[in-house]
């Protein structure tokens, strides 16, 4: 395998892994927080405004970790910084 293929394979596999793991763990966390918030809502319906607001802010915080993973995988696929490096190296080697 030449270096361009290696970079492509590693990039695609890593992007998939990043999104996969990065969706799984925040989903578990969000599920827990929503379940706890529902329990709290069932026990104290009067405090629903506060609970809902805190839940949304907390969910956004958890969700942002998944979003970071998504952004990183998008960078790996569409704006990979190693491509230019490898292509420049290959052109250099071909020119020799």
């Amino acid at each position: 395998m030449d270096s361009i293929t290696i970079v492509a394979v590693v990039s695609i596999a890593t992007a998939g892994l990043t999104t996969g793991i990065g969706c799984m763990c925040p989903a578990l966390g969000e599920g827990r927080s929503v379940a706890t918030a529902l329990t709290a809502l069932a026990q104290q319906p009067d405090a629903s405004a506060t609970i809902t607001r805190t839940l949304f802010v907390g969910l956004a915080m958890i969700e942002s970790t998944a979003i970071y993973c998504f952004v990183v995988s998008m960078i790996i696929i569409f704006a990979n910084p190693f491509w230019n490096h490898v292509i420049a190296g290959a052109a250099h080697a071909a020119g020799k």
Partner: protein
Amino acid sequence: MRLSADQMIFWRHGVFKLNGTIVFTWALMLVLVVGSMLVTRRLSTELKRSRWQNLLEIIVTTIEKQIEEVGLPHPEKYLGFLGTLFLFVAVAAICTVIPGYAPPTGSLSTTAALALCVFVAVPLFGIGEQGLGGYLRTYVSPTVIMLPFNLISELSRTLALAVRLFGNMMSGTMIIAILLTITPYVFPLVMTLLGLLTGMVQAYIFSILAAVYIAAAVRVRKPRHAPAAPARAQPVKPQPQKK
């Protein structure tokens, strides 16, 4: 594949490019400003009022109430800033129902600019409320050791605000673009609906987080200094009596 509105170029002259982000941002600003100017031109205080005035009143009072619930006692002081943030992000998300439109918040430069506004506004409100010294003291609030962590948190939350909004809006348009190539007709429509919901939630979260940050900068001093002053004065007196 078109990742964001940055890559739609309408006009180019030398180094100057007029991309979709700038065009749609200005269009949104124009719609918001001219729309509210038209509505507020004939305000009535009587029982009979136009439906547009009703709409604006509902929006403004809801934002005011939300800001007050976060813990800012005088919401009208922060209404201009936080309300603008909310309305801009929300309208940018709602307008995705218009064909050919790409949300300007799906570009990292727009969200970075919005997050920088929050980054600048939080110290400004903090200094305005408790003075320069009082605000700077919050950085070393428990001990001096916490100074670098406070500075890092200030920077990282700005980055998080920018990347969160960008990632959410960008992922929405991107998922629709991917689904259009796989399963046209029905599924992209459902995802567009979901995108509207996430857009509204993101607008809410962006402004609520900005309000929380401002509230943290504004009110830090009050609970600490009120009990601390008598507590420190008391132990000084008994000491001369002991010896």
